[in-house]
């Protein structure tokens, strides 16, 4: 759960607990204080009454006597109560309701006779007072807590701004981007540390990545030379005619393998070079014209397999890309459609307002669409990599943010490139 909510929840729980406990305690304390005070007054009244009774020698025959808020009753001589406090409820005739009272009972001897005296004091106002005091205090506390709560939420955003800024930068971070993150200085020490650590991390990643790219490119180039040696020696070998059929077959198979290795390496080099941004020059490329040009070059190859071509170049899309890469893209798309086609098959090229569609008939294969653009994926039929040329297509599309999709229904394969910008 979110940090803010987590801390809010904890604070809320604790404050509710304190609130509850505090409320009860506070009530009890005030109540005790007030009762103590009332009792003191009752005692004071008791003393007054005793003094008065002794002084007045008041003996009357009509008992019990209620004088003011105290009641005198004759009591057994054996009964002796010094001071007894009770809470009681009396019915107030005037107010017509029951009211709480504090009662003090004691016995006293007047003129050798034992009397029980009960002194009453109204608690109505006191109780009222207690309730009002406690309520006010609680409301104040509540207001305080709520204020704290909302202020916390408000300032949370501001304090954590720096953090979220860094997090957003981290989310958007891409190896291909500028390694300079430009994280602003934060006054919060912990966030400043976070920023510094993050910057160091991306710097290191970037360095490692560049080293890897360089290494890959150099390795591929190093491979070119021994391949050249192999190629040249095989070519020289083939110049001499005195081999048996078997030997010729072996030498040519050797040659074929070397050639395949060369193609694969060439494509790998191209892929790494595109990755390393070595085709930065851009110009406006007219797709319609380029497609027609390349189709012309493919003419004999298409005819060799008797493939019928349907070309619907409806729009004059212009894209701003590197011309070399645009050609590679088109060539590989068409090449792939011819390579993995049937004899007497079909090839359709549709150029729409923002898409290029290449459709070809071809053998079924069970490679899932998303894997088709991975390098070196092989089908069972052709035995050679379906993916190599298409991996170039994908790389170029990635570079320029074009969307490329493949799908097939049985024996009809479609590759769609979207240039929408």
């Amino acid at each position: 759960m979110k940090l803010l909510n987590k801390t809010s929840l904890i604070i809320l729980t604790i404050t509710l607990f304190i609130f509850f406990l505090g409320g009860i305690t506070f009530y009890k304390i005030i109540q005790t204080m007030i009762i103590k005070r009332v009792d003191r007054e009752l005692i004071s009244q008791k003393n007054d009454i005793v003094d008065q009774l002794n002084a007045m020698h008041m003996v009357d025959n009509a008992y019990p006597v209620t004088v003011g808020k105290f009641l005198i009753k004759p009591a057994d001589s054996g009964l002796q109560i010094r001071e007894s406090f009770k809470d009681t409820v009396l019915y107030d005739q005037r107010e017509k309701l029951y009211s709480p009272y504090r009662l003090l009972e004691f016995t006293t001897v007047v003129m050798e006779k034992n009397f029980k005296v009960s002194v009453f004091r109204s608690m109505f106002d006191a109780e009222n007072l207690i309730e009002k005091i406690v309520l006010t205090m609680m409301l104040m506390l509540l207001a305080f807590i709520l204020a704290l709560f909302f202020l916390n939420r408000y300032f949370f955003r501001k304090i954590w701004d720096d953090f979220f800024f860094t997090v957003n930068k981290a989310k958007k971070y891409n190896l291909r981007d500028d390694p300079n993150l430009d994280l602003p200085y934060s006054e919060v020490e912990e966030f400043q540390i976070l920023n510094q650590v993050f910057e160091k991390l991306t710097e290191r990643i970037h360095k490692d990545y560049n080293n890897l790219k360089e290494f890959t490119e150099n390795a591929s180039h190093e491979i070119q030379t021994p391949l050249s040696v192999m190629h040249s020696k095989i070519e020289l070998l083939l110049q001499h005619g005195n081999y048996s059929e078997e030997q010729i077959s072996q030498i040519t198979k050797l040659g074929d393998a070397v050639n395949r290795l060369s193609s694969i390496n060439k494509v790998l080099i191209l892929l790494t070079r595109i990755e390393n941004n070595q085709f930065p020059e851009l110009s406006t490329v007219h797709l319609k014209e380029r497609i027609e040009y390349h189709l012309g070059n493919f003419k004999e190859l298409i005819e060799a397999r008797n493939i019928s071509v349907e070309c619907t170049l409806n729009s004059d899309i212009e894209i701003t890309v590197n011309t070399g890469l645009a050609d590679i893209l088109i060539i590989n798309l068409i090449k792939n459609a011819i390579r993995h086609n049937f004899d007497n098959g079909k090839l359709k090229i549709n150029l729409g307002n923002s898409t290029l569609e290449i459709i070809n008939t071809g053998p079924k294969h069970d490679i899932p669409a998303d894997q088709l653009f991975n390098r070196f994926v092989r089908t069972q039929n052709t035995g050679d990599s379906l993916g190599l040329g298409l991996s170039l297509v994908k790389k170029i599309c990635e570079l320029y943010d074009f969307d490329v999709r493949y799908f097939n229904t049985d024996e009809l394969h479609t590759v769609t490139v979207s240039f929408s910008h």
Partner: protein
Amino acid sequence: MKILIVEDEVALAESIGQYLSGEGYVCELAFDYTSASDKFNSYQYDCAIIDINLPDGNGIDLIRELKEYHTTSGIIIISARDSLNDRIAGLNIGADDYLIKPFNLSELNARLKSVVRRIFFSGSNEIIFNEIRIDTSAIQVFVNDKLINLTKKEYDMLLFFISNKNRVLTKESIGENVWGDYADTLNSLDFIYTHIWNLRKKLIDNGAKDYLQNVYGVGYKFNTL
């Protein structure tokens, strides 16, 4: 014609030397910048084939040196790097052609012949072999002075064959030369057979001798009988 081959990979330099010697060139080899420079200083060469990635220097500098101090005219760069910038730099500095490794020796040979024609026989744009005359500027082929109708691809093939007379040319090298990047479009290079057969027929029908020969299992050869 004397050629200096500057290439640090010894086996490759030897291969090139062997093939070109077979063509009648006098070939010498140098395996690094220093020895190449020394050789250029001491001897005369008509052409040079230079690898720009030398262990002790940049081939481009070597070419610059050549252009400034020596009379070597034809320069072909061979390189493992297919960078547009390298290509432009090389051609700007005065190289005549740029080949990327790995390449077919027959291709190198054809390019060399083309450079030689351009530089040393600049007046003539013709290749003549017996009854066959090729006009490279007009891109026309004559047999016994009669113009024959060849497609562009057939023309390219004939040129390639005649540049590599009596050499066994693999289908792959023919495909590379004539169709370039498109050559590996089909799963097999058998389609080349049709084109060669058509070329052969056109030549013979117009009175040329039967030079084009199939070398079983390998490729084809322009046999000068």
